[in-house]
């Protein structure tokens, strides 16, 4: 379990620093440190099992059908990388506390760093081919947030976008590659891949898999030609550059190469491409680094070069080269992170990082100069520092490699060694030595311990690992063994290997490198003149601009703002899909005998068609159109009734009544006629007729055809499992209860949105327009005729009784919560129409919000009750209850659910209508002067 905890701690702990940041910057730091330190201790608690070769594994099925599981595995390789991620992370956290200015949101910064840390740990510990890319993308996302942390700077935003686009695209390629790999190998477990190497390599997909995985690794680890995002990512705050872009994230690609090494590592394609790309990147990065004056840019290109070096080592195809690669990953992480922190100190103290404007800083900041010089010497590979150890190991491996192991590669590596020595020498000699040059008005000095402490720790590691490299041997041996899948005789680590070719190369590199720095001016002028013209960045931004402009052009065309076009476009696309489906079908002939026609049906259909025609004809005469639409609704409910759907008929007819009231209320606020000239779009008319005909034809074909259905399933189980004989109602409240729950929730939300929309009209422009609104018709002085009011009040108890009846019989006969709710709403609406809004609302007592909330709670509680009894959500129970005097009454727990439906639907309907009616009062709709309660007049009561 500790594997899960190691990954989860930073991810979940990310919430802590922003909370603790309220208490100050140091509490935020402690809150960030806590999860990392605990995770590191847990990780090191696994050391014994890692070194004994029995890694801890966690496997929790996630989506077994896809092969996705939450699988983590702490083997030597994962342990090595996870240790780096956590240990350097802790140093970075401490350093950041000193680096960020007092007014910067340090809590957020730590949260991003922790998210990144957790994602990175997930990458190196995941043992599932689908889980790994999830974490992989998370590192890209958190890196985006961190590079763009100074989002007020255009460079930050640009660099963040660039990094996200390149690494994100690479991540997609990787995902594709890993899915193919899993499918070919027949397993999604990383740890099982090595055993299936033959199967994978025999597959015709193997080249594609390798290409896609390499794309993922090369983009992440900034290999040529994708290297250009890394220097731009330097717009990030320096702790981020030190952590993500030198020590950890860019090593994810190397980690991945090491992970798939047992499968592909010795194939020809691998050796050619990985070695080739790695060597090219190494040389390119080193060349550019030498001619950069910005300290961070110099370090960035140097990082590109060192990543190329490790890639090249992984490409050589020998287990000992993998060991050398791991060695250099460790050494590079220590000295490069120290150098970045060093640059950060210079930047922090002088406000500059330009080598042309700074020099001789050793005079004012000796400690910084000492640390920077040591780390830079290690980067140059000078003994007795750790960079020397890994460089020697690298040279030995290159010399021994089977491919290109002769002079070509040897020459390249030698050239790169010269260039590395040169830029490393230049870093410290130009910055710390020579005459003192400073920006005006600043007197820098050594920073507080928070800033020099973490690099000091790293520089101590640089020296110790240089003097006694064998200290790191067990860790590296475990990592290499896990990477290559076997224990090989690992090279012995020592500072002194005796005289040999590697030492000669080193010595030559130092001499030529020093000479190059000595004659830097002459050299730089000549080289910069023909410096590499290719800049991936320019190509990238051109492509981006082209895409964005293209998208705008497309949007302007498609997203025209004309509703009619959207409707037609939608219809045309549906028809095309339909035609496609029809073409793929097997043809059709009627299977079912037609249902006999009857005269009444013909008459009502005629009425319906006439009403539809008249709605279209008179849509601009609005009152008429509303009433005609109601007539259409009545015909539809009759159609339901005729076709054996009494529940639908009841629902439709009551919804129809409510909708008509709604549309009439709407007419209060709209002109009575169309205000724009009535356009008659002929094209739209023709298209509508065509689409309508196709849909009608489709309906007819469907009705005359047989097909599989679930009718028997529900019919046979309705009573035995649902405890009710009205199958429709049982489906609603029992079989599909979860759906219904969702639907009433939607309805409740819609009502709340309506409330919010109308409440918003009480201010701003809308309020002015509302006050200036004149009702489009004269108001009758006797709006609430007394006979109507009296009749309505007499009817109320009877209506309520009907509501109860409809509700309670609903489980066994047509009725139920939906219909009862609509009837209840109608009973309420009748009172409103008869006696006015205020009168009715005054007697409602309960707010419509309360109805909605209570209804959802009741429905939810019924479902939860089932869970409480150990059954799934909404599982219904039923039985008979004997009530004295009445006899056995069948009861089902689903009735509680139906009650929730009733309350919610009633609340939603009344909330919508009441709010709309209330708007009339805001608009100055004068109350009727007829007293509604003659017996108890209340002059203060306003009627509306």
């Amino acid at each position, binding site marked *: 379990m500790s594997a899960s905890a190691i990954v989860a701690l930073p991810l979940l702990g990310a919430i802590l620093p922003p909370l603790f940041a309220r208490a100050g910057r140091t509490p935020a730091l402690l809150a960030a440190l806590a999860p990392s330190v605990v995770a590191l201790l847990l990780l090191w608690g696994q050391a014994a099992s890692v070194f004994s070769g029995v890694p801890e594994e966690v496997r929790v099925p996630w989506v077994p059908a896809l092969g996705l599981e939450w699988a983590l595995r702490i083997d030597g390789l994962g342990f090595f990388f996870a240790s780096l991620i956590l240990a350097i992370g802790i140093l970075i956290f401490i350093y950041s506390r000193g680096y960020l200015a007092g007014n910067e949101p340090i809590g957020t910064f730590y949260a991003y760093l922790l998210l990144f840390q957790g994602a990175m740990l997930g990458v190196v510990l995941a043992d599932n081919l689908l889980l790994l890319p999830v974490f992989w993308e998370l590192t890209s996302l958190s890196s985006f947030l961190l590079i763009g942390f100074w989002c007020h700077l255009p460079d930050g935003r640009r660099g963040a976008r660039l990094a996200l686009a390149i690494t994100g695209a690479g991540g997609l390629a990787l995902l594709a590659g890993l899915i193919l790999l899993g499918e070919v190998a027949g397993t999604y477990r990383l740890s099982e891949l090595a055993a299936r190497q033959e199967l994978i390599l025999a597959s015709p997909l193997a080249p594609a898999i390798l290409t896609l995985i390499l794309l993922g690794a090369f983009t992440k680890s900034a290999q040529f030609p994708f290297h250009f995002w890394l220097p731009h990512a330097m717009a990030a705050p320096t702790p981020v550059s030190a952590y993500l872009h030198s020590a950890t994230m860019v090593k994810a690609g190397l980690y991945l190469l090491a992970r798939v090494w047992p499968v592909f590592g010795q194939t020809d394609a691998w050796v050619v491409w990985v070695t080739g790309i790695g060597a090219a990147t190494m040389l390119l990065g080193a060349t550019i680094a030498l001619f950069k004056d910005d300290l961070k840019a110099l370090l960035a290109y140097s990082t590109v070069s060192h990543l190329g070096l490790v890639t090249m080592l992984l490409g050589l195809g020998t287990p000992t080269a993998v060991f050398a690669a791991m060695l250099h990953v460790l050494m590079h992480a220590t000295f490069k992170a120290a150098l970045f922190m060093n640059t950060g100190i210079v930047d922090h103290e002088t406000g500059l990082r330009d080598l042309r404007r700074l020099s001789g800083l050793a005079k004012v900041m000796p400690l910084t100069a000492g640390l920077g010089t040591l780390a830079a010497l290690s980067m140059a590979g000078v003994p007795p520092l750790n960079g020397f150890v890994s460089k020697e190991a690298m040279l030995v491996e290159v010399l021994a490699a089977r491919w290109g192991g002769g002079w070509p590669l040897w020459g390249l590596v030698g050239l790169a060694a010269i260039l590395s020595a040169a830029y490393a020498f230049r870093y410290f000699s130009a910055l710390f030595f020579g005459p003192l040059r400073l920006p005006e008005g600043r007197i820098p000095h050594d920073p507080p311990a928070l800033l020099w402490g973490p690099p000091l720790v790293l520089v101590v590691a640089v020296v110790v690992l240089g003097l006694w490299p064998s200290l790191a041997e067990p860790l590296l041996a475990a990592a290499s063994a896990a990477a290559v899948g076997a224990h090989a005789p690992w090279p012995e680590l020592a500072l002194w290997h005796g005289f040999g070719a590697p030492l000669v190369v080193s010595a030559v590199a130092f001499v030529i490198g020093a000479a190059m720095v000595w004659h830097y001016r002459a050299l730089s002028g000549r080289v910069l003149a023909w410096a590499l013209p290719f800049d991936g960045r320019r190509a990238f931004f051109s492509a981006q601009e082209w895409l964005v402009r293209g998208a705008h052009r497309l949007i302007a065309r498609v997203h025209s703002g004309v509703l009619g076009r959207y409707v037609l476009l939608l219809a045309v696309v549906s028809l095309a899909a339909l035609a496609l489906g029809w073409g793929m079908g097997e043809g059709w002939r009627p299977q079912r005998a037609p249902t006999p026609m009857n005269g009444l049906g013909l008459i009502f259909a005629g009425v319906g068609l006439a009403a539809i025609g008249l709605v279209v004809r008179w849509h601009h005469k609005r009152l008429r159109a509303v009433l005609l639409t109601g007539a259409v609704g009545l015909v539809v409910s009759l159609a339901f009734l005729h*076709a054996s759907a009494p529940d639908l008929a009841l629902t439709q007819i009551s919804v129809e009544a409510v909708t008509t009231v709604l549309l009439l209320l709407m007419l209060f606020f709209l002109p009575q006629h169309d205000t724009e000239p009535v356009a008659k779009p002929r094209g739209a008319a023709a298209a509508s007729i065509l689409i309508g005909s196709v849909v009608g034809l489709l309906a007819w074909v469907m009705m005359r055809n047989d097909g599989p259905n679930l009718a028997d399933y529900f019919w046979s189980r309705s009573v035995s499992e649902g405890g009710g004989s009205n199958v429709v109602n049982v489906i609603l409240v029992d079989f599909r209860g979860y759906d219904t729950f969702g639907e009433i929730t939607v309805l409740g939300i819609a009502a709340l949105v309506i409330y919010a929309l109308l409440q918003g009209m009480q201010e701003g422009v809308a309020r002015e327009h509302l006050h200036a609104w004149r009702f489009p018709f004269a108001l009758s002085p006797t709006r609430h005729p007394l006979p109507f009011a009296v009749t309505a009040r007499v009817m109320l108890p009877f209506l309520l009784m009907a509501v109860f009846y409809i509700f309670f019989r609903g489980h066994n006969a047509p009725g139920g919560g939906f219909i009862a709710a609509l009837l209840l709403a109608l009973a309420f609406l009748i009172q409103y129409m008869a006696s006015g809004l205020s009168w009715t609302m005054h007697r409602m007592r309960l707010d419509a919000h309360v109805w909605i909330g209570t209804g959802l709670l009741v429905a939810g509680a019924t479902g939860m009750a089932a869970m409480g009894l150990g059954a799934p959500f909404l599982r219904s129970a039923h039985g008979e209850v004997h009530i004295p005097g009445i006899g056995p009454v069948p009861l089902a727990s689903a009735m509680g659910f139906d009650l929730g439906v009733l309350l919610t639907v009633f609340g939603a309907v009344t909330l919508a209508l009441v709010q709309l009616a209330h708007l009339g009062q805001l608009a100055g709709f004068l109350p009727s002067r007829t007293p509604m309660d003659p017996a108890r007049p209340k002059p203060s009561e306003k009627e509306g």
Partner: protein
Amino acid sequence: MEILFAVLIAALTAAGIYLCCLRQVFPVVLGLSLLSYATNLFLFVAGRLTVGAPPVWAEGVTRFADPLPQALVLTAIVIAFGMTALLVVLAIRARFESGVERSDVPAVTDRVEVER
């Protein structure tokens, strides 16, 4: 009877789409109401037509209408009401905010500068 249902669905669909293509909001509200009738009827007839056999269980009954489309349509009718109410309120709000009652908005023409 099938042909009557088909014709009704065809007419409702055609009228609904036509009204939705108009420039003012009010006909669009009507059009969507008609379209929702059409959709509900279409969904309903997916259970085929059965006359005189409502899906209420009783001992020995073997002929009954398919209850599943009915259950689907029942909630759809109520949701359609919620949608209509929301649309009505949106139309009113838009009308009082903008002062005009139109279903279309001017096309987006302003160019967005691309940051390089």
